[in-house]
């Protein structure tokens, strides 16, 4: 099954990345490393890489900070916290395309916030019309849609911290911050690793929200790497070049995920020892 559903598609993408296939002709022609060489000099690829980097770095930090913060607040049992846990997780189960359209109706130049500001006598804010604001809007919407799962994972991690250690810290006179820093945080190391890797990999592949929220605009300034792969492959019929981009992204994701996991291993080892 792994061969059929993972290795074959990857191998096929690898093969296509060395061709000029347009998706319509029956026999792709080999082009050697030309697609990879083009990728290195393509300004659109460079720009998409920068946008993806911003979304990934800022999004990963924000998702984890918000996820951990809320998990700490909701780490108690009451009806209210049960409801709040469901509420924060809810965006995660909505399809990203729906989320994109929903937020474009809120942030768009003709959207809900613009109307509210207009009624109050203010000019609308350029959430989606200014490139910098549009990238910021994408990051905010991505974080809103993703961090619910981080809350749940951090809550699960917090359940594994023995209450006796908190009690011992309390008896020793440790304050809340000290207890968190010296007891909770080190024991959350495995959860932190899982959350960081999951969010990182997810954000490097952000596509649907960009499609529905900005469509890559204005002027292609919010194109992420995944968005570029799809538009290059199916809008311009450059499936060979798109495959080269996809293989590159896959290698980057694998390298970053493995690197981050290796970096986190020391923190995790400290917990287990």
């Amino acid at each position: 099954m792994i061969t059929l559903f993972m290795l074959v598609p990857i191998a096929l993408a690898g093969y296509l990345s060395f061709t000029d296939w347009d998706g319509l002709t029956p026999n792709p022609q080999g082009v050697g490393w030309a697609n990879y060489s083009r990728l290195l000099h393509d300004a659109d690829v460079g720009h998409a890489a920068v946008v993806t980097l911003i979304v990934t770095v800022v999004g990963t930090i924000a998702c984890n900070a918000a996820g951990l913060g809320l998990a700490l607040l909701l780490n108690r049992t009451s009806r209210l916290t049960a409801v709040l846990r469901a509420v924060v997780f809810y965006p995660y189960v909505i399809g990203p395309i729906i989320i994109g359209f929903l937020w474009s109706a809120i942030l768009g130049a003709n959207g809900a916030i613009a109307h509210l500001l207009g009624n109050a006598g203010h000019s609308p804010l350029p959430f989606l019309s200014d490139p910098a604001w549009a990238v910021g809007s994408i990051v905010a919407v991505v974080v809103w849609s993703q961090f619910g799962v981080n809350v749940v994972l951090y809550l699960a991690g917090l359940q594994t911290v023995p209450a006796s250690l908190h009690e011992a810290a309390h008896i020793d006179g440790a304050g809340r911050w000290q207890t968190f820093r010296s007891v909770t945080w080190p024991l959350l190391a495995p959860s932190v690793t899982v959350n960081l890797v999951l969010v990182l990999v997810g954000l490097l592949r952000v596509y649907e929200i960009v499609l529905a929220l900005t469509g890559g605009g204005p002027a292609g300034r919010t194109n992420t790497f995944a968005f570029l792969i799809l538009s290059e492959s199916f809008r311009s019929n450059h499936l060979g070049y798109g495959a080269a981009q996809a293989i590159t992204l896959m290698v980057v994701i694998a390298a970053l995920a493995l690197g981050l996991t290796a970096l986190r291993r020391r923190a995790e080892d400290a917990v287990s020892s």
Partner: protein
Amino acid sequence: MKKAKALVVTAAALLLTACSSSGGFQDTGDAGSASDAKLRLLVNVTPVLTKQFYEDLVKPYTDAHPGVTVSIEAPTAADVSATLQQQLAAGSPPDLVSGSLGRDTVPQLTALPEQQWVKDAPYAEQSRVGGAMWQAGSGNQVQSLVFYNKAAFAKAGITTVPKSLADLTAALVKLKGAGYVPTQTSGEWVTGAQVQMLGNVNVLNTAPDWFAQRNENKTSFAGSPWRQVLETYQGWVKQGLTPKDAMGLKYQDAIDQFLAGKSATFVMGGWFVPTADEAKKSFDVGVFAVPTLDGSPAPVAGNPSIPWSVTKSSKNQAAALDLLKFLVTDKDAVTKELKAEGNFRKGFDYEASALNKEVAAIVSGAPSTVVASNGQGDNSAPTGYNDEFNKLVQGLYLDQKPGTVLKSIDSWYTSNAK
């Protein structure tokens, strides 16, 4: 170890199978029977051209041909072209396809017969690639119109419709003074499409085969009237004649703004007519042809409406061609197709709205017709041109100079032209 080896061998075998199989890329499908076939139609679905519309469209044909069944398929990817691409790769292409298809799709299509009914179909002649016709339209879709708010024009003291782009700019300035957003645009595909509508009539009026010339590097965007068109458009942006937040608007927002009476003009194709007719509005909508740079009578830029092609790998070639003939020649079917989007075809009349009659008058009064958007057949731009053009033209809203934008378009075009 043995298990690992087996996996590698299996993977290699599957890969080879995948690579050696050409999926739906067959040389030629079977002729099949014209009276007994199951036909699959991949169609362009829009708010007007719904799945139900197509089902109603083919019903008279299937009623008259009991052995033929037709299933309508909407695109499952970004558009018809991308869906066709996926279906070809998956080995299950449709029999007929309706939508905007690039030149690189031609190897997957059946050449239409050199018969009069094909030649008479709109834009069939223009669809020729390598001498053969590949696509037949049901009608002519006009793509070089300026819809305007008659009340706004009256309030701004504009008594005659603009004849040149300079006249139009002057009118837009007056409309701004009268308190309107002078001309409506938005992000998405709209920015590029509108600039193409302004440009094509001014570029192709003197060089109808301009895209063919550009494909052979005999001309360039930077060295053609595109420069004046883009300079004019950037002038509009700088003078605040387009919405300040245009790039944050979607196509539907642009329609809503115009029909709400907030903006005074809207450069758009003829498909906007049914929407404008059906909307509740407090003003009358008028229409005039996109003006030329020098004020000379403007040609009409058009595309085939609901164009049909037969896929080469269809196993029902005869039945597919017979249905295509019905769709582009049957009086009732063609009229239905024309009426749905407010399109035109000589000899096929229908009860038109006042606005549609104004468009018809523009078409009949135009000195010539030129291809719209990215062109047709040999006289067309490489696949991806519309998206790239749109992306680069949006740069005008980010203070890029027209010369820089045109240089980028030329650079993209040169590296993508085949």
